[in-house]
């Protein structure tokens, strides 16, 4: 994927108004649909929920979009709505592009606080020139924009970059729309490991197998996936380079090998091995070699995950009689128990900013996603489904992707950390599980 240039658009001079940018409005619940594509695991994004503070934004269709291979404005709108921070405002019927001076009173009437407009122009060599500009409707200010020259194949990526620009400009936080997710599907007896855009589109198969694949884990560089494969009829751990398909078997010891987790420097992985009896935690060099035992316990220790400063490893252990989440220094030593509610807490995912721990709790027979504020210990339930699995934080710590079951079908969902805005990435065939959110692309 290459973008030839990203050029900031020169600002158009404009007067400044006195009102604040953010104001409380009634949130608009929007349903966004993306075009269905021919590959197996394609998604429609369905967004539900009402958030407290959502910035109303009008994303005008780009001039020339109707004839273009991708509806850029629709992709941008779906991205921004899925974040839970924006509500789309009807932007139809206006002919605008990045050079327009829009009639902002019209947009104020439509209750938009922000307006985006732009153009997409085919070039003689087959590529496309995409430009956009962002307007603060309330302050009547030009917030800037960008221009791109790309091939048709990279138009979706451009839309995600535009959504990132808008998100960052208005929230001050980094957008995750240009990141990727990995997940596993099962169709009949065929398992596939997919790499897709964060909106679920553009999925490409990294691995296809007649035996199960579980526990995909992105390397910090975003270039490799570790996972557990049963292709040799016992669980073993591979490290797989996504762009080349080359893979290395790094854990094939006696017994079961599973639960790979990367250290933040990408140099080693924590894994669960049964080579010495029981399921215990070890660390192993990312190139393979002799594992080093992390701890010894009389029970099951599994599902390790590093904190993003690399100093700690969170993990699941039933050393106390039932599975709970603990934390240990990544050099080993005494472990500290983290979860205390209920008698079954598993599948930890810790936010990159170190503030939150997402995990699955079993309560009354239902498996439910919860998130804990690590400073205060306060726990919030996030879902009303009862078969939640494998949560994974987005790299900006603002969203969680997880697997669940709705109407008897497995599905991937994203949720904001307050549980209020959810998006369903519904698969079109087979069952979907084991999502892992990739890092920011460097």
């Amino acid at each position, binding site marked *: 994927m290459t973008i030839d240039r990203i050029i900031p658009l020169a600002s158009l001079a404009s007067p400044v108004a006195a009102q604040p940018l953010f104001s409380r409005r009634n949130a608009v619940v929007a349903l966004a649909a993306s075009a269905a594509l021919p590959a197996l695991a394609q998604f429609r994004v369905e967004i539900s929920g009402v958030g407290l503070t959502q910035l109303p934004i009008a994303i005008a269709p780009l001039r020339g979009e109707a004839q273009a291979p991708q509806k850029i404005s629709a992709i941008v709108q779906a991205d921004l709505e899925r974040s839970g921070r924006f509500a789309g405002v009807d932007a139809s019927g206006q002919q605008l592009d990045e050079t327009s001076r829009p009639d902002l009173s019209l947009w104020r009437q439509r209750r938009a606080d922000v307006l985006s407009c732009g153009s997409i122009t085919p070039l003689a060599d087959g590529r496309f020139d995409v430009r956009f500009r962002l307007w603060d409707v309330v302050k009547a200010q030009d917030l800037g924009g960008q221009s791109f020259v790309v091939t048709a194949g990279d138009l979706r990526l451009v839309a995600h970059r535009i959504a990132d620009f808008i998100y960052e400009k208005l929230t001050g936080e980094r957008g995750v729309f240009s990141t990727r997710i990995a997940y596993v599907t099962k169709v009949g007896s*065929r398992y596939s490991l997919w790499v897709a855009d964060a909106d679920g589109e553009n999925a*490409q*198969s*990294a*691995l*296809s*197998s*007649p*035996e*199960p694949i*579980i*526990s995909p884990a992105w390397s910090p560089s975003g270039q490799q996936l570790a996972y557990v494969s*049963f*292709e*040799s*009829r*016992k*669980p073993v751990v591979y490290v*797989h380079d*996504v*762009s*080349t*398909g*080359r*893979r290395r078997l790094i854990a094939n010891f*006696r*017994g*079961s090998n*599973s*639960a790979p987790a990367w250290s933040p420097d990408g140099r080693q992985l924590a894994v*669960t091995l*049964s080579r010495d*009896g*029981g*399921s215990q935690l070890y660390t192993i060099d990312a190139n393979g070699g002799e594992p080093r035992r992390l701890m010894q316990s009389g029970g*099951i220790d*599994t*599902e390790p995950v590093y904190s993003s400063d690399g100093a700690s490893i969170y993990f*699941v252990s039933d050393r106390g009689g039932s*599975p709970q989440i603990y934390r240990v220094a990544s050099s080993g030593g005494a472990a500290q128990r983290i979860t205390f509610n209920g008698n*079954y807490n*598993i*599948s930890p995912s810790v936010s990159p900013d170190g503030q939150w721990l997402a995990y*699955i709790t*079993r309560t009354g027979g239902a*498996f439910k996603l919860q998130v804990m504020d690590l400073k205060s210990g306060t726990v919030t339930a996030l879902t009303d489904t009862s078969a939640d*699995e*494998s949560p994974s934080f987005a790299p900006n710590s603002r969203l969680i992707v997880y697997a669940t079951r709705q109407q008897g079908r497995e599905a991937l969902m994203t949720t904001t950390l307050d549980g209020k805005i959810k998006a369903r990435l519904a698969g079109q065939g087979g069952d979907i*599980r*084991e999502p892992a959110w990739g890092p920011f692309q460097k």
Partner: protein
Amino acid sequence: MIRTQFKRACFALTIAALVAGCSSGVDLDKAPVEDRGATATMPGANTGNTGESSVAPVDLTQSARPGEGPVGVAHVIYFDFDSFVVKPEFQGALEGHAKYLKSHTARKVMLEGHTDERGGREYNLALGQKRAEAVRRSLSLLGVTDAQMEAVSFGKEKPAVQGHTEDAFAQNRRVELSYR
């Protein structure tokens, strides 16, 4: 002596060949997955004695094909919910396997632990492992050497029976003894 050949090394080499220089996307369906059986039982291979009254022994308990092991003995041990204890009713079956393994010291058994579908995948992998190791301990107490056994787990990934009923759950909580 009839020897059985394990083709696992061949399989691993094939995968290694697939890995080198692959463009993105690895399709394991194209790799030969099955273990190919060795040559069929050859009666009378241990010749030496001739004469019209000699009888060439054919020993069906010495299965030349992988995947068999002792005949007439259960190859699946079932477990109660939340339990990792081998119930007494399976002791006879384990004794049958132990006897087989002690008299066929070149054979190896994979003890494949499974759980029902409830719960997380990795934690269930560890629970299945616990069941497989319970069976290994029982076999070890019956005199089977460690070298002839490997305890692995499939967690909840390979149910024997589909379904969300207690009956289906009960049939999935198991250890399978697999001679490869």
